[in-house]
């Protein structure tokens, strides 16, 4: 499959559209300037990304970058966990036995029919009061040796915030896991029945059949919708700012309020989110093409 790039040739329609876009942008910024009497001032913004620490004599991440790192951690772990949840429940959803099928169905319907915010509030209450003490995260972090602590910091961020971040990860992945479940289910059901028959006829058990024959094909089929869902997950990670998880959106609110530089801060934050999501999209595109090459 040769995908040749189309040459860049501008027609006059392209030119008009382009000019219209520039005019619109200019108009908006003019209105903000004149009507809202907003005085643009970008000078403080870089300082909220990185600041010079006099004590340590080096540059350290300031609020916005700290938030971005937390968001990245949330997104990464969220994706991993949501994928695990999605595959497990997706398989259960197509199981022959009634109980796993019903359990999975109940999970998916429950989450799909509640607004994300409401779910997060309820679930967070449950997590922070029940699950976190059960997991003993706080205690574990407190008693961790220096070596482990360094690893934990790399994986989950500043030790003080680890319980906070883990709660966020659990919320986010439980929520997105439901959508991944549906995607995986669709993928499994799209694998032709003849593949299952071929597997059974060489003596594979149901479990081996799922693991070696059905699931790989299902996953290959659902890479595009899955990529979309993971990017949604990155964006939706901002929801957990409402339960005080100190990620990008949460810290952006603080920064915006304390600096009064509303537009500058939020535009910067938007750019950061865009950068992350766009990189994800490019990554998934490459993955998709790679998988197409090794496939049939």
């Amino acid at each position, binding site marked *: 499959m040769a995908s040749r790039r189309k040459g860049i040739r501008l027609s006059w329609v392209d030119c008009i559209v382009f000019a219209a876009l520039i005019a619109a942008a200019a108009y908006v910024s003019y209105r903000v300037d004149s009507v809202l009497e907003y005085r643009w001032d970008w000078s403080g913004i870089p300082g909220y990304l990185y600041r010079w620490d006099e004590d340590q004599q080096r540059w350290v991440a300031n609020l916005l970058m700290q938030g971005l790192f937390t968001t990245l951690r949330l997104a990464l772990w969220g994706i991993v966990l949501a994928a695990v949840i999605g595959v497990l429940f997706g398989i259960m959803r197509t199981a022959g036995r009634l109980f796993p099928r019903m359990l999975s169905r109940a999970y998916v319907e429950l989450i799909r029919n509640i607004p994300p915010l409401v779910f997060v509030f309820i679930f967070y209450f449950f997590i922070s009061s029940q699950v976190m003490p059960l997991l003993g995260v706080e205690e574990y972090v407190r008693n961790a040796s220096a070596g482990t602590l360094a690893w934990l910091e790399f994986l989950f961020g500043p030790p003080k915030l680890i319980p906070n971040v883990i709660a966020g990860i659990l919320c986010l992945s439980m929520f997105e896991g439901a959508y991944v479940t549906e995607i995986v289910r669709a993928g499994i059901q799209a694998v*032709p029945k*003849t*593949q299952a*028959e*071929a*597997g*059974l*006829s*060489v*003596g*594979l*058990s149901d479990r*081996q059949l799922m693991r*070696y*024959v059905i699931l*790989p*094909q299902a996953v*290959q089929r659902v890479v595009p919708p899955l990529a979309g869902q993971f990017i949604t997950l990155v964006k939706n990670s901002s929801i957990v700012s409402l339960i005080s998880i100190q990620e990008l959106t949460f810290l952006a609110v603080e920064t915006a309020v304390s600096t009064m530089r509303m537009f500058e801060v939020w535009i910067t934050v938007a750019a950061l989110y865009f950068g992350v999501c766009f990189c994800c999209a490019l990554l998934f595109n490459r993955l998709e093409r790679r998988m197409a090459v*090794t*496939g*049939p």
Partner: protein
Amino acid sequence: MRFPKGPHTPGKVVIEFEGVNKWFGEFHVLKDINLQVRERERVVICGPSGSGKSTLIRCINRLEEHQEGRIVVDGHELGNDPKSAAAIRKEVGMVFPILNLFPLLRVVYNCMRGPSNAGGFSMAEARDRAMEYLARVRIPEQAEKYPGQLSGGQQQRVAIARSLCMQPRIMLFDEPTSALDPEMIKEVLDVMADLAKSGMTMIVVTHEMGFARTVADTMVFMDAGRIVESAPPERFFARPESGRSKLFLSRILSH
């Protein structure tokens, strides 16, 4: 070509149908089937489309379940003992009418899945065995390709090798050449003829009457869910007994 009929020591009965009936919902697809297949016997089943040929042989490895009567395969009665399906499938290989190799696995891994997962062999042993059978179907050089890179005839030969890797005692073929272009049919039939020569017990659903004539010990003709006629090929082709088989033969042999 005159095919040397196998060493004709008719072995013990390995497949037995006794008064088997099957319904798809209201539709009575298999009607009072009685059939015996002996060790090393080659049975060719033919009949018009929709007569229940596929359903019949799919009952043997339990891809379909019958509702009435007894099916005994290699000493196991199907349906009574829950472990039987997996056990039976290790003894019974099957080649399907459509191309259904595992598309994401290289040819050699297609053949290794069965032995390494269901047969309990190490990967190295499974690979040796896969290569042995790929050589038997005359495509060892394609081992590292993906199924999509092979022609239809090659894919069907890999499918045969994939089944043989489990070293089954019985092989079922459900119109293995029906999805193939004419020039590829012969290479698949040749491999099947080799297999017959080696003494494999085979049940073959096919409309390739040349193949049937040379390889079959027994011709079975089905129509509307019944076995209408069952005879050695010499008699079946020269003097078909029922009107339906006469009509079927005249249609199929006329082109």
